[in-house]
């Protein structure tokens, strides 16, 4: 088990995907992958929410921000937030006409949008209203929607992040509610199919669909901590959030 334990230990610090070098710089800019250490972020959250600069990790973090709630509801709200972001992103791609009307790519982005919308509404229906975070506001204006490659790459990284977020959060679900893990499992493989499909558009006939940047030498896909996920996706979330309960849940399971 020793070998296994060492290979499944999450990497420390923010992880920047080893994407093809030509695009790497663009990615860093487009996705706001900051160098803020996840550990420092976590510590800061525990010390005092009020002392955190509102722009840390790209997300607007505030003690008064939207809380994810307690226990399994924190995990469900986390997933709900990510599905909201994905829906908003795909809708923006379609509305801003990145791809020609009727093109194969446009159809694919419409299909994926509809899946993310179904996921979003599923969580909305599944989480009781008094436990559910509201509808978040997003700002995706940093993305150049006229740039086909930037849009495809942003979609790819969002899907990669979604899969790694589910992979990281799944084990946090309590065993009393194992059904939530099954439901999350039903969704995460659809997100992985999205990631694969988008990668095939980016690199037809290549190995990007399950690239070495996202799958390690043991054939395992990445898993990301809450802090790592927020450091990638947070810059698009306009609504101030307070992830303290989620971070506390995560650290209690370590």
């Amino acid at each position, binding site marked *: *088990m020793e*070998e*296994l*334990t060492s*290979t*499944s230990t999450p990497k420390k610090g923010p992880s920047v995907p080893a994407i093809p070098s030509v695009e790497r710089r663009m990615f860093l800019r487009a996705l706001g992958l900051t160098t803020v250490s996840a550990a420092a972020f976590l510590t800061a959250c525990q010390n005092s929410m009020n002392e955190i600069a509102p722009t840390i990790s790209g997300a607007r973090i505030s003690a008064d921000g939207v809380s994810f709630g307690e226990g399994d509801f924190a995990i469900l709200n986390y997933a709900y937030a990510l599905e909201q972001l994905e829906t908003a992103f795909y809708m923006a791609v*379609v509305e801003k006409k990145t791809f020609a009307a009727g093109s194969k790519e446009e159809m694919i982005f*419409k*299909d994926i*949008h*509809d*899946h993310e*919308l*179904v*996921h979003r*509404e*599923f969580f909305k*229906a*599944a989480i009781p209203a008094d436990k559910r975070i509201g509808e978040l506001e997003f700002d995706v204006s940093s993305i150049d929607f006229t740039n086909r490659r930037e849009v495809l790459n942003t979609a790819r990284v969002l899907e990669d992040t979604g*899969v790694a977020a*589910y*992979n990281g959060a*799944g*084990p946090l*679900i309590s*065993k009393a509610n*194992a*059904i939530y*893990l*099954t*439901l999350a*499992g*039903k*969704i*995460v*493989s*659809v*997100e*992985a*199919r*999205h*990631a*694969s*499909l988008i990668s*095939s558009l980016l690199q037809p*006939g*290549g*190995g990007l*669909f*399950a*690239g070495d940047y996202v*799958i390690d*030498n*043991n*054939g*395992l*896909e*990445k*898993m990301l901590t809450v802090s790592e996920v927020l450091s990638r996706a947070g810059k698009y979330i306009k609504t101030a959030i307070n992830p303290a309960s989620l971070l506390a849940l995560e650290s209690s399971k370590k």
Partner: protein
Amino acid sequence: MNLFGIFSQIEKADPEIGQKMDFSRRKMLKTTSVAAAATPMFFAAMVNKAFAADGCAGDAIAIVKYALTLEYLERDFYRAGQFKAGLVPSSARPYVVQIAKHEAQHVDLLEGVLGIKPNAMQPKYNMDVLAAATANFPTFLTYAQALEDTGVRAYKGQAACLLEEDTATSRTVLAVALRIHSVEARHAAAVRYMRDLRVWPSGGQNGMEPDPKIYAGEDQASQGGANLVDLFNMMENKSKLYSPDMAARSVYESFDEPLTAQQVLAIAGPFFASTPA
């Protein structure tokens, strides 16, 4: 629980099983599902003895053995394909090489979890079936899709088992299983993309598959007690879809469904030799 024991027990329980499972190559291609259907009662009987009613393959170690069996099959299927001269066209080679690499890594990793020597638990295959599955490239892709989509469903079906077991071992295995699960889904989508199919299994849009059991129960209207097809047939929700006329399909495609260990073994059974050599 030893998964391989199942197959040898099958043989003991029914001496004619070898003949029943020894399909001719032509028959296999044409009627795999029919051929597999020749043994379902038998599989059901064995499987019911061996597995819990909740579809779990057993405890965490049993689940690793179960997963390892499927990974061996995937690895050896892709190896057979890769090394068959002229089978994989150069345009598809990067896809096949990448997938085959991961399956071999999964075998190594799971063997490591069990602390066994390389190939110590490698099953014996029905070589006629493997030959049929690699007969030509379209058939190879058909079987690749079948194995990948089944693999996704198989891992998904064991996740809750591992969470509920709640031991140090099960927690370690769960983290690994989830991270293999999403890799299999990436593979499945890539193979389906190569076949020019929609990359989500539902609505029967799975091309010509070798066995209808692979996609049994994929189209679910309800999730967690919420009827999502009804939800998206309400105008306020339907109008938010870009393909409102395909609301049901979008719901089905948005969720991949699990399979129990019993269901997976019924699908994978024909690939294995009935008599350990």
